[in-house]
């Protein structure tokens, strides 16, 4: 999908108008953010906005996240066991310490 973010009030107004006028090409809309379908028409709308507002419109392309493709099992395991912890107050780094779970810094250093 195409993630379109408006950074000025004028750009936000344009984004809202475009998203409202082309609802069938819009997957989701939040305040000043819209997800357009990844079609040429969605790209056309995003480019129109950027043409009009320059850098006040950010366009990024998103892709589906499949945790079974994107991350190693240890990361999924860490999420599962941490959310299943008994003591709510314990921060993750302390939780991971002593268990066979990846520390935060290690995960921060690995790009998907």
């Amino acid at each position: 999908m195409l993630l379109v973010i408006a950074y000025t009030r004028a750009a936000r107004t344009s984004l809202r108008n475009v998203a409202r006028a082309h609802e069938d090409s819009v997957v989701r809309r939040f305040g000043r953010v819209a997800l357009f379908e990844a079609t040429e028409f969605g790209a056309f709308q995003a480019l129109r906005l950027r043409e009009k507002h320059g850098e006040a419109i950010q366009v990024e392309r998103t892709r589906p996240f499949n945790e079974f493709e994107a991350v190693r099992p240890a990361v999924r395991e860490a999420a599962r066991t941490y959310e299943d912890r008994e003591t709510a107050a314990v921060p993750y780094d302390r939780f991971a310490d002593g268990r066979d779970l990846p520390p935060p810094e290690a995960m921060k250093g690995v790009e998907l």
Partner: protein
Amino acid sequence: MTGTGVDGAGANVPTISVRIGDAVRCGRAVTVAVDVDPAALVEAVRSPDAAADGRVAVDAPAPGPVHEHVGHVRPGMGLRTRTALARAARSRGLETPHDDALASVRDRLAATSVEEGDITSRRRAVAEAATETERLRERVATVRGKLQAAREHGGDAAAVSEELASAVRQLSETETDSLAARQRFERVREHARERRDRRERVRKLEDKLANLERDARAHLVEQLADRYADAVADAPGAEQVADPFDADPVTAALAIGRLASLSAPVVLACDRFASAAAASRWLGAPVVRV
């Protein structure tokens, strides 16, 4: 004249002078011939320098913000009544509890600037380098196949071998260029991100400013609402309405003009008053009547 105090015409209504062609008229209330374009008069009030050489010129104090709304009263005019009323309140020096916050947000906005940037050319360079790399990869593969065939079927293997070396060399250079283009892009993208952070701060301030302005406007309108209702009821030629904010724009503009402190002349192109003098007395402002 029914107004009293600040609502009524005071001795401090300034005298203005209006020149049409060679004829000059002075006073607090001036009537001009019907063939004078009211819009030209308004223009002459708002930009006296631009109008100085034209057929119409007005010598009068400079208009304030409320003049934009009620400085040209004519049938069919539009009016943002509450905005105009709030500006009338400001012209009288009324304040709101939001003014300090408004000033602070305006200062912060004035101090925040975001330079324009455009990284389109960098994106294009990355895409073009990638396309060229892909093209050369395919070419290397093709020439490899050709070399294989030349060796198996007795072609000119030496020539093809040279062709392959050249293609590989080109590919290697293009891959280097492509990597450099991507690195340059990564760098400018970081800067673009910083610009977005600043834009984000500006937008938040602007949203805050808009909210404060709305609150301030509501406060100002509230303070003048009763006087406004009285002025609407007192306006000559007005139809009775239950809510004074539903008054027709001419009536509303006259009422707001009466409440405002106006030293620049109001151009009247309506027949609500018997004379320019009557209009000036009712409005408490200099008047040019067409």
